[in-house]
């Protein structure tokens, strides 16, 4: 039996029609059409599917779509503040070459956004702890760290 789930995604009220056993990840990609969120492992190991639900990052593969009823979901498609404006993290990732194949990037950006929202000046250790649920097989992480620290500095400068 299909169920209709009403929720808010990236600030817009939305609806999806799903099977009870459908993950939020599959529903976002196949039913809502938001394919920015990636499926790497489907069992919580890789973090490619990270979305923010009611303010907390979770693995969309480990949540059922029916559980999203009435909740607020933020995905990578909602990260940029305007049509032609990038989030400082997206900009820094491009400048630093922090994205190669790009498969991990949406999940890492969502995690990095949450990290900087909570902690505008993270140390390397804070970044390491914050990203321990996100696997990248291309970059070796160094450029990701550089990009996050650079974005943190730019966001700090923009605030003052």
């Amino acid at each position, binding site marked *: *039996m299909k169920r209709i789930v009403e929720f808010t995604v990236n600030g817009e009220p939305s609806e999806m029609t799903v*099977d*009870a*056993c*459908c*993950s939020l990840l599959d529903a976002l990609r196949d039913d809502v059409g938001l394919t920015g969120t990636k499926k790497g492992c*489907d*069992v*919580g*190991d890789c*973090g490619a599917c*990270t979305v923010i639900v009611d303010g*907390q*990052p*979770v*693995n969309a*593969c*480990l*949540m*059922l779509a*029916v*559980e999203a009823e009435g909740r607020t979901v933020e995905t990578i498609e909602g990260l940029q503040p305007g049509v032609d404006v990038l989030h400082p993290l997206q900009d820094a990732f491009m400048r630093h070459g922090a994205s190669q194949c790009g498969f991990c990037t949406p999940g890492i950006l969502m*995690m990095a956004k949450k990290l900087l929202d909570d902690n505008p000046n993270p140390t390397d250790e804070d970044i*390491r*702890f*914050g990203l*321990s*649920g*996100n696997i990248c097989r291309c970059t070796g992480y160094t450029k990701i760290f550089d990009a996050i620290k650079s974005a943190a500095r730019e966001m700090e400068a923009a605030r003052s």
Partner: protein
Amino acid sequence: MRRFDYHRAETLEHASRLLTELGDDTFLFNGGTDLLVEIRERLRRVRNVIDIKGIPGLSDITYDETRGLTFGALVTVGRLERLALVRQRYPNLREALASLGSIQVRNRATVVGNVCRASPSADTIPPLIADGAFIHIYSPTNMRVVPLSEFFTGPGRTVLAKGEIVTGITVPPAGDNTGKAYLKHGRRKAMELSTVGVAVSLSMDDGVCSDIRIALGAVGATVLRAPQAEAMLRGTTLDAATVKNAADKAMEECTPISNVRASADYRRDMVGVLTGRAIRQALETFA
């Protein structure tokens, strides 16, 4: 994904009734971080899941000096991990919480789910047992509170009967004379299941150890206590020689197996190393 149906329970009584009425292959669905993985990897046959997250009254966290810390079945690992009280009073539990999976997993995984899955390597169980925690069980016929050390009957098995639901866990208060530690040993620092986990909770009165509990994870069919090692330590000053002898005793008391993560011999050796280290770390509280 294998198909299953989803039910939302309104009350404990409702969830319990669904568990009995829907028949075999029906499971409570909490954070789902074990259940959904087991369904995807075809480790568990599931026809129905019963979501308990809408049941009122299971999300509370309370602390008082006589009863200690009580948290409901829906409290996530992440929520407890972020609590200053847990960091200050229960550093052993806090260490286990912060080492479980990733931030994303911890925002969904519940402590009660970690306990109910009854894995011998579950990180939250050793510190909770070392602290003498109790588990609250809702039952249509036999409501009860059970010491956590008596909750497990084997890997993946507990004393819960059909239709019974864990409503929460109480951890006794942590006095000023207590020291605690949890050491998780794995092949890497994050996103890793324990190869061995050792939790220690001890009390010192006038420089003498008045009580100590040692809980060993991933070295037996359930998380184990080390009663003989504990007996050797009680009433002593926890001097280096006594700690060494007790750690050797703990190695004899555990019953590890070999698997992909480590051999039985290696696990036993690590019990010796980590037991001594955990006692020393717990003692640092008084330094």
